[in-house]
């Protein structure tokens, strides 16, 4: 029992060790290579990093829930884009013209509602057809993205509401609005997964679906709720981000699903379900953002960043595997 607990503690702590390593590396390397004279570990830089982590991070919390549940959602990037368009476009709709700045909460609600419904639709299909979530959301990823392009062709959808921009750029107790949203979502999903019956059932379903069914857990509704939650969070992420930027391109959010899944997996969630938590995911999100920012800081371009993150993902999973089989006389594959 002991070695198992140890390796799990190592596996859970690994992501934080990795973050510390990154910080040290980029601080040291940055002092030689960086073109800017600002230190990497600068306080403002770190706060900015947290804020920049928010769009991916908010969705990653939902992905943790969905993956622990034994599913996956590839459509989050497309949902993100649709929610963004709904947010920005709805503020210009004539029926809301008389609302003044009250259009903001209406647009927010509308956008969140659309995201939730798109997620729930994924869940409903997975539940009722029994088709694997990977396939279902691969389909909806393409389908939802198609809707984005149908809406405005290749053109961006833009609308700036200065009250909204002010809100999004505001800071409270030193943290940006987006950072607060990320922290609140992390706390909320942590509570849901660790403390509620729904959350525990989600673990059970992901761990051993047959056992869950035999125990009378209604697997389908639980899965659909989790898909609705990730849809909601994809929309929330869009709402937080586009309140500030005010313009959405039809390609926005592409590859988000992969970044999100990378963060979740780095954070220790089992790809087959049943194990994982949002604290680890939070670490995964920060680790990726650090890497992107840090590599930028020392002058690497985007393509290098992707290459490095790809390598690190494989290395981390390999390490995890080694930790978990260490001590056993392994059977060769």
């Amino acid at each position, binding site marked *: 029992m002991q070695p198992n607990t140890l390796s799990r503690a190592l596996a859970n702590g690994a992501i934080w060790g990795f973050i510390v390593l990154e910080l040290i590396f980029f601080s040291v390397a940055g002092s030689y290579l960086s073109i800017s004279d600002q230190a990497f570990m600068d306080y403002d830089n770190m706060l900015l990093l947290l804020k920049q982590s928010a769009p991916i991070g908010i969705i990653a919390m939902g992905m943790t829930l969905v993956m622990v549940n034994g599913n996956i959602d590839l459509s989050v990037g497309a949902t993100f884009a649709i929610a963004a368009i709904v947010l920005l476009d709805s503020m210009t709709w004539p029926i809301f013209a008389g609302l003044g700045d009250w259009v903001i909460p209406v647009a927010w609600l509308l956008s969140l509602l659309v995201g939730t419904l798109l997620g729930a639709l994924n869940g409903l299909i997975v539940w009722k057809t029994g088709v694997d979530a990977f396939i279902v959301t691969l389909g909806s990823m393409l389908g939802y993205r198609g809707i984005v392009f149908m809406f405005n062709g290749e053109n961006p959808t833009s609308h700036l509401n200065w009250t909204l921009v002010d809100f999004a750029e505001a800071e409270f107790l030193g943290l940006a609005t987006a950072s607060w949203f990320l922290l609140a979502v992390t706390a909320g999903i942590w509570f849901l997964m660790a403390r509620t*019956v729904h959350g525990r059932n989600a673990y059970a379903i992901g761990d051993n679906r047959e056992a869950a069914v035999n125990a009378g857990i209604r697997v389908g509704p639980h899965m659909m709720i989790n898909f609705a939650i990730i849809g909601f969070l994809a929309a929330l992420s869009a709402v937080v981000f586009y309140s500030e930027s005010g313009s959405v391109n039809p390609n926005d959010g592409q590859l988000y699903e992969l970044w999100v899944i990378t963060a979740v997996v780095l954070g220790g969630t089992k790809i087959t379900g049943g194990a994982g938590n949002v604290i680890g995911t939070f670490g995964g999100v920060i680790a990726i953002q650090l890497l992107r920012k840090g590599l930028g800081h020392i002058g690497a371009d985007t393509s290098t960043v992707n290459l490095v993150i790809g390598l690190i993902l494989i290395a981390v999973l390999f390490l995890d595997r080694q930790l978990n089989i260490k001590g056993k006389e392994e059977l060769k594959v």
Partner: protein
Amino acid sequence: MTDAKPVLHLDNIVKTFPGVRALDDVSFSVMPGEVHALMGENGAGKSTLMKVLGGIYQPDGGAIYMGDERVVMAGPLEAKAKGIVFIHQELSLAEELSVAENIYLGELPRKSFGRVDWGLLTEKTNAILKKLNVGFDARTRVGDLSIANQQMVEIARALTVDAKAVIFDEPTASLTDAEKVVLFDVISDLKADGVGIIYISHRMEEIFKITDRISILRDGQYQGTVNTSDTTEESLTQMMIGRKLDLSRNASHHELGDVALEVRGLSCGKLYSDVSFQVRRGEVVGFYGLVGAGRTEIAETLFGLRDAHSGQILLDGEEVRINSPADAIQRGISLVPEDRKGQGLVLGMNCRDNMTLPQVDDLTAGPFVAEGAEVAIFDQYRDRLDIRTPGWKQQVGNLSGGNQQKIVIGKWLSMHPSVLIVDEPTRGIDVGSKSEIHKLLRELAAQGYAVMVISSEMPEVLHVSDRIVAMYSGRIMRTFTSEEVTEDSLIQAISGLGGDKAA
């Protein structure tokens, strides 16, 4: 017992599937405080009957009574609510969750906002665990428990409901002897509480040890119920297969050939250490021991699946290194694995393709697979091993266990091995096909193969082996010849009691 009302009475249950009458007028009763064994070959209808009882299948005829009341099991949950609890052979647990969460899976106590009431959950769980007298607590992660303790979790789950009848389906399949004792204690406690127990098992010793009555099914038909104290193993077997089974000792009468396989001082960490033995051509050497004694691991090493840390392997007197199964096959070692469906066969493929799987690289005509040659090989071994299948196109998954095992054996024979290692040759195979497999193993030895048989069933080891290697905890305790071996000395050797270490 006669004046009490049965806790469970099955009355003329009929269940038909397209083309098969799976259950034909099956009736039997379980009294309170009785351990009632249900026996029969695989395919006799035991699982179908239990699925009817569990509400997974609806019977086409007949009725189920609990006490005086006729009941209809609409589904698994309803069966559970009525106090019928199943302890399945294959554990149905969520390994990453705690013991408490597994026991109350689907029924976690709630507080406001859908929160789990951890305090109440832990309290209720610990109360049950205390009753079972186990050495772990509510918060232990299930994946960290041994198989036996995991089974205790399943049993604890049964105790959360007011169980009237508990069905144990092959509960001892993966337990050690010590763990069995604990299990039997739990069963006798349940018995003392007036719970009716249905005990499904193939293991005669257990049946005679713990059951009160035995009901037998054959081909979906009820063969009768006997008092355990009034019957014998022989008559039970006869009821199950409709004829007598030959389980006599069976030493070779032919001349043994040279030593084909020799192992010297082979060790692999904690799994096994300092293992030395020889297998001659024409000989069947049985490896007997408890689960975890290291027998399968030795076989895996010989087949190149697992590296030994030290020691030598000699084939025909020449030291060899076996780094992979490909190496092993090329040198004439074949392994018929323990888990036939998981490791031995590709269930979705047909009989012919399974049979020729290891040599399909060589069966080619230009760039293509030579299907004709494949069929020829299949036909040859179908006839030689008497494999009963409608044709080579049949999917292996649809064959009976015995015929599946013959396909695996045929697959290796077609590679012309010199050493054949067979791990649990008759696991999950019904009694009738069992004796065919035994006969086949004897014949193969007579034809000059060196055969290693690993088995956890004593009658099987005694029946097929010329010599028996008794293992305990990774070490060879003693090697017996079939003339000198007795059941007692064998049991002593594999329990680590007595028995000088000699190879």
